[in-house]
């Protein structure tokens, strides 16, 4: 399923792709007999904040001679998986330097020290999320 369809089915975010809000689904039309007994029910949903679109970081022209940080978020197995990513670069793109780091804090925590290190010493970062 593509992103647009998935977001539409969830009824909340297709606007993020389309750039404009869309209407939520309306209740289906009732049959003629039942129209005499219509009820008005209030929408139980809260108020989501508008989404601030964030422009993505500029891309590199090439990875030649660049340093890529490989970041684990603490879930088991991410470190071993990223090891294999590092091995792939060494074998297939030897001019690339990879640096593995385990992000400090619980999985959703920010790690400002690591972010600063990547900005100072790295050219790109790959973050691994999952189990």
């Amino acid at each position, binding site marked *: 399923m593509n992103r647009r369809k998935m977001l539409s089915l969830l009824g909340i975010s297709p606007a993020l792709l389309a750039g404009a809000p869309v209407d939520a689904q309306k209740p*289906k039309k009732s049959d003629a007999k039942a129209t005499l007994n219509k009820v008005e*029910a209030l929408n139980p949903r809260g108020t989501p904040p508008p*989404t601030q679109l964030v*422009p993505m970081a500029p*891309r590199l022209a090439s990875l030649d001679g660049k340093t890529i940080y490989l970041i684990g978020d603490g879930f088991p197995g991410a470190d071993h998986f990223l090891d294999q990513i590092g091995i792939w670069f060494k074998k297939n*793109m030897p001019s690339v330097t990879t640096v593995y780091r385990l992000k400090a804090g619980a999985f959703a925590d920010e790690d400002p020290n690591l972010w600063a290190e990547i900005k100072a010493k790295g050219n790109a970062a*790959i973050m691994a999320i*999952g*189990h």
Partner: protein
Amino acid sequence: MVTKAFKDLAILNAAKRGMPHERITFTPHPVSGKTPDELRAYVEGNDPVSGKPMMMEIVDALTRPLSEDEKKTGMVPINVGPPSFKDTAVNLQEYFLNNGMTDFLPIILPTEETVDAMLKSTSHKPDEVCGKMAAGAYPPWEFTVKQVAVNAVMAGCRPEYFPVVLAIASSGTPSLFSSTNSFAYAAVINGPIRDKLNMNYGIGALGPFAQPNATIGRAWTLLSKNLGNGGIPGDTYMGSQGNNLNYNNAIIAENEAASPWTPFHVQKGFKVEENAISLFRGLGIVPGQGARGTSTDTPKHEEQFSDLFSVFTGFFGGLVIADPLVAVSLKSRGYDTKEQLIAWLYKNTTQSVKDYKSRDFAYGFDYPRALKGLEPYATWYKMPDDAMIPRWPHETDINVVVAGGQTNAFFQGGSLSYTVSISIDKWT
């Protein structure tokens, strides 16, 4: 990079955070427990979502110039539908159900009339902002007193229960949370309001035997879905197996009259005559029957609690839910306060460092804390494998409440952490 099981979550979360075109490469799932050869095959294989070679996709994602869409800025509103829906009652029930606004049980339709009746039970204005809620690491949704009332009506609450529901909502704590763990939630209610609402804290205190116990907890789940955007499988809910407690959570009215100990809310700084609700979060509740020592003539309940808790992960706190018979027995054996019992449990419920480190919770959450120097994790990770350490990081991770009808000296144990206590009176 994200494992395939989290495809929808990753795409939607990136969109909610303002990057609907985030370049994500997927791997087969899971990566944990795989050998180096298996992981190498992942890396040298294809992205299971796009079908393209994984590493070529990564190189492309890092080097392909940004499209105009990827450079976009600005604010985008999110539409959650019209203020109301008009149709037959049958069609509306189906509409609410099919659009993720229920717990898949029939609801009371929230009409202006029923919602207005609910609003009469609080002095707070309908359009007052009650709070914000997020069912995970997402931007929180905001909601008013009236929006909480709509969900309270749907859950079947009587108007007099509404201040309790408002107190829960104001905490911003969802009862459905985005994690592969299937978290459970509980709430302890103290104060005279328990009798005013006819809450059940006697026989079957944790069962389906009283309307306020049943519907207040149900309202918590409905508002978590509708006000906090929680409970959308694959998006804001990832619990692999789900948790039956999520239907209406464990609403525990403490049996203050039959308890020999200080009521829970007084332990948290409230006065006896005040009304408060205290929230808990964790993995679930299990009965204590059959624990070590239960067949003896003079049962040592503290040892039974410890035995039960020894199979719990220490990542969440321990909550003892003791029948009054158990509490009175403990008091007669010298545990004059809950705190004395808690101190014994903390000291005597232990684990080896080796066992502790082998838990995925420890690796995923505590080890990164240890790296940051946070205690006691930093010290625990420096200790030898055969050293014995407490089951929980802090004595305050253990709590005790009293509930039950005194038909037998039984207890239940919750793998549940105390989070917050909220005044109910503030919302009357």
